[in-house]
């Protein structure tokens, strides 16, 4: 009886099945592969059950939660400067800033004991530390041993570590993740990607290995500055220019490194306002910029003893007294220093000038292109090129600074062009590789390997290793639930051009060799840093090539738009 009453219903269902099946089949055959760069990757496989309109909301939460779980798990590892007195590391620096901001009046923040991790980031970082410091003080139930002035130096306990890890994740959830997801959806709509592919791109971006390992492993708050920059780009895409300017100023006021992006923002905004004779817009942008700067620095002036405090903060933020580069870093200066010993030939002043000239020359093409062709789809390429030239030719660059160029580059995962995506994933791996010496020092080797493998596997970089051939058939290796046919073989993630294929393969081999040397061969006594230098040289070569590629892309795409490429 039950079955008889059900029958008409099931008939209808079957009819619908056929319809959906057919449409699915046709799309598979015609366009998906060309359209969706991540087709048949494990991420696609995991998220394909949420293709239905009724389930898309789930996909968003799942990628965010998954990324957060991974970040938490990475956070279980060690951090920079763990158990290494007297100076410890970045973790201690951040903790120390919380300690001094909640204990001292604003007037002393930039003056207090500058030799022991004195505050040398712009005021928003200080306010951020202040808020988190109070949160920690509250959670620590005012027993205050996390943040007692002076006494808590080098304080290490598990609860403190958990709190600090939590504070990074909190900042990320509030500032970085929403921006990234918004951008993926925005660009995805422009390029007519399926919603699920937008989320796949978002997942690929959120799982960017370098940022996870630096922020959640090594310990820093880069996600805040990067997140504010993403908001600024989003506002440019939405044509809210004043808001974009304000967001970008906040990014600079969090970490001065965001200045790497400034030429592009400057050129783009200038072109969009003054050179289109939109004076109202120009004034609005100017007002937004100035007022957000004032907003950030005003408390220093008002509450902190006047102009001298502001000047001191700026003096602390831009330490031009330091050298061309400090540690080994994969940029032009450090690598070519192997051949030409700059510091013996030139004075520091001269070097400053040369580096400025080279940097300007490097960023000029991207700035010019964005000025004459102020198009939205060029923004990410321009930002990548500009910040990369800062990284390669800039003064006083750290290895972690690679995160800045990597942000716009990684955001290019939203592209539907397979070659672009493969270039992006390649340079992300190079970026991670260049962080190896740092992460090794922090004791994050395990996390490095796992995150490298996982992030590459998820976006389908390892699909050339088909488990089908390695395992017996009754174990059914292969995709889990997606409707990718069992015979479909995903192409490896390499660009179309032979040149780049060659470059990428050679660079991977070089990276592999460097790692093996690092693992098994002791460097000669004369050059204890030999493997690190090798690491830097390999990465620097890749960066250079990639920087050229971004410029080439800028030039070749200048007359197109989101829809057409």
């Amino acid at each position: 009886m039950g079955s008889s009453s059900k029958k008409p219903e099931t008939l209808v269902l079957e009819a619908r099945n056929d319809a959906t099946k057919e449409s699915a089949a046709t799309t598979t055959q015609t366009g998906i592969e060309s359209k969706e760069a991540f087709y048949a990757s494990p991420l696609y496989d995991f998220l394909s059950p949420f293709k239905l309109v009724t389930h898309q909301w789930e996909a968003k939460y799942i990628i965010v939660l998954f990324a957060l779980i991974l970040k938490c798990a990475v956070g279980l590892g060690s951090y920079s400067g763990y158990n290494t007195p007297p100076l410890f590391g970045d973790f201690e620096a951040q903790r120390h800033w919380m300690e001094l901001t909640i204990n001292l009046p604003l007037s002393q923040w930039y003056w207090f004991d500058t030799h022991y991790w004195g505050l040398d980031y712009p005021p928003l970082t200080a306010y951020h530390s202040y808020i988190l410091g109070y949160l920690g003080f509250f959670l620590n139930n005012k027993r205050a041993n996390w943040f007692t002035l002076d006494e808590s130096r080098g304080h290490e306990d598990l609860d403190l570590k958990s709190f600090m890890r939590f504070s990074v994740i909190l900042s990320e959830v509030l500032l970085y993740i929403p921006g990234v997801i918004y951008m993926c959806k925005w660009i995805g709509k422009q390029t007519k990607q399926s919603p699920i592919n937008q989320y796949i791109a978002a997942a690929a971006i959120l799982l960017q290995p370098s940022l996870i390992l630096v922020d959640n492993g090594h310990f820093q708050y880069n996600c805040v500055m990067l997140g504010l920059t993403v908001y600024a780009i989003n506002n440019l895409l939405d044509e809210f220019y004043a808001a974009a300017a304000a967001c970008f100023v906040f990014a600079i006021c969090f970490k001065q490194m965001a200045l790497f992006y400034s030429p592009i923002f400057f050129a783009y905004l200038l072109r969009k306002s003054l050179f289109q004779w939109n004076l109202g817009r120009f004034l609005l942008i100017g007002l937004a910029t100035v007022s957000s700067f004032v907003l950030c620095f005003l408390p220093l002036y008002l509450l902190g003893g006047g102009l001298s405090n502001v000047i001191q903060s700026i003096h602390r933020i831009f330490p031009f007294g330091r050298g061309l580069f400090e540690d080994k870093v994969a940029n032009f200066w450090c690598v070519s220093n192997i051949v030409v010993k700059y510091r013996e030939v030139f004075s520091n002043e001269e070097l400053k000038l040369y580096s400025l000239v080279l940097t300007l020359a490097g960023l000029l093409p991207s700035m010019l292109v964005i000025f004459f062709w102020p198009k939205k789809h060029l923004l990410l390429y321009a930002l990548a090129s500009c910040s990369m030239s800062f990284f390669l030719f800039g003064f006083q660059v750290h290895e972690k600074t690679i995160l800045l160029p990597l942000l716009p580059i990684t955001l290019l995962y939203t592209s539907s062009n397979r070659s672009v995506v493969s270039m992006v994933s390649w340079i992300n791996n190079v970026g991670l590789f260049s962080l190896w010496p740092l992460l090794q020092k922090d004791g994050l080797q395990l996390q490095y390997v796992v995150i490298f493998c996982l992030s590459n596997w998820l976006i389908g970089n390892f699909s050339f290793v088909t488990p089908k051939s390695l395992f017996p058939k009754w174990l059914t290796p292969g995709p889990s639930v997606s409707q990718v046919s069992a015979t479909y073989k995903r192409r490896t993630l390499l660009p179309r051009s032979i040149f780049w294929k060659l470059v990428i393969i050679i660079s991977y081999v070089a990276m592999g060799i460097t790692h093996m040397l690092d693992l098994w061969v002791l460097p000669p006594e004369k050059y204890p840093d030999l493997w690190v230098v090798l690491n830097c040289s390999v990465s620097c070569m890749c960066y250079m090539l990639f920087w050229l590629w971004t410029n080439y892309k800028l030039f070749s795409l200048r007359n197109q738009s989101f829809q057409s490429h």
Partner: protein
Amino acid sequence: MGHSAKQKNKKSPVKSPPLKKPLLQQIEVDETRNYSLWNFWVASTALKILLFPGYYSTDFDVHRNWMAITKKLPLKEWYFEKTSQWTLDYPPFFAYFEWFLAQFVPKAAIEDGCLDIVSVGMFGIPTIYYQRCTVILSEIVLFVVLQVYVNKSKMSEKSANFVVASSIVLSPGFLIVDHIHFQYNGFLFGILIASIVSAKFEHYLLCGFFFSVALCFKHIFLYLAPSFFVFLLRAYILNFDSSFKFKSYKNLFELVHWTRLFKLAGVVLSTFAVCFLPFARDYEQLLSRLFPFNRGLTHAYWAPNFWALYSFVDKILTVAVMKISQHTNKLDFLFKKCHLFTHWGHNNLDEVINTGTRGLVQDVTFEILPQIPPKITFTLTLFYQVIAVLPVLFAPTFKRFIGSLTLCGYSSFLFGWHVHEKAIMLVIIPFSFLVISDRRLLTPFRLVTAAGYVSLFPLLYTSQDFLLKILYVTIWCLIYFVALRDITKISSSIERRVWFFDRMAIVYIITLLPLIVACGTIDIMRVSEKFEFLSLMLYSVYCALGVGSSWLGLSWLYNFDEPLWEE
């Protein structure tokens, strides 16, 4: 029927949007899909490796010690060795397993102290990495068994079975208990699931074999034994087909498939023989290790079962009585019989509240309510197990068998003696196989998984795992609550679903989150000694409500709902 169909038409636009169903049916018919756990294994393994540097409990040292015992000592001393307080108290198969693991300990780990028989293990990273790896590798059994289950199932059932299989391999229970807390449950439950799967595909001999192997690995599976016993007896050995007619006592003899009986008995008994014969001479020692009756009613902290609620009521009454008697002594004569007044002199309020929740393995005494001797817990457990098992005797279908298995797990968890919170997996795993058969089972399932997994949280008391465990349980619930709702069949008797209970369950589950956050905040702030117990008590009492009501829901459906159990 016409009436109910009408009712359905009237309600369906409100209750279940008609769009959802067809799309999911489409998944069911689709034959091109590969339904593989492969990707899940890769992704979850990456996560599990990242957990290596995290927290591990004393169970880690327990297993390390067992490895050392089995490697260093001759077999007959295994169950006598007691240098460490973590004596070997699992059945011999598990000891053999530990011996097997001890064969592959790398040199670095041996030098690290992995195989030293000492009272407190001194070890470092190599040992931790090695043992963590053994957990991950042994868990492959679980993946393989479930993959076979998916592959062998009918095309129409594949997607539903795949959801079940993936929900089990990704279960937060295994992640928390095995990969953080440290145990080998993934592997052990793999064997148990193998026996369930063989029962599904009617390989009864295999079913008996796997269950006896599982039993020889971990004797907690004894709680599920009644169900297996009755099911195999009725489905395999007894012969009640329609041709049976009683004419004389000779006919009774035909009731039994004798060859089957001997085959099954042979398989089961030889398994036990391989397991226990080497220890036959010292069976008393072995038994005293396996069944230590000197432990208390509740474990370190109260597992969320009936006794948690019982203790909670007792605490409330105690506090109430003390408050009253502080004000007036006139009521004394009312309470004269109460246990409380036997040690009235030295008890103060806080001390009374704190006993039994301090995380010590100790005897719990109740102040007001009557004491609970082991006999009562066993009687209760057995009573509810018999009720659960009887229907299988009359109609030995797979669905009923799984139902009875789940209920056996429930009764042992809710009423058992010295129950660990980890034992909730005995309920959740069988229930996962059952829940796809009807949507009305979803509410009890959601309740027991949410409450059960949350009740595991106090196992990981360090702050570093706090966010991780919440996020993982959340993502699991998000994925599988929705996936199971989509995949479960709406039975013809859907109208009988009680709307109110479903909504209550959802409210209950959502309320778990503020509870966890509040408890976490209390823990990290360490407000005062007085509140030491508070978060533990909140956890166990609130979760006990969830587990208990889910048991009531399932019992109701099991015992009183006919259409659900028709094949």
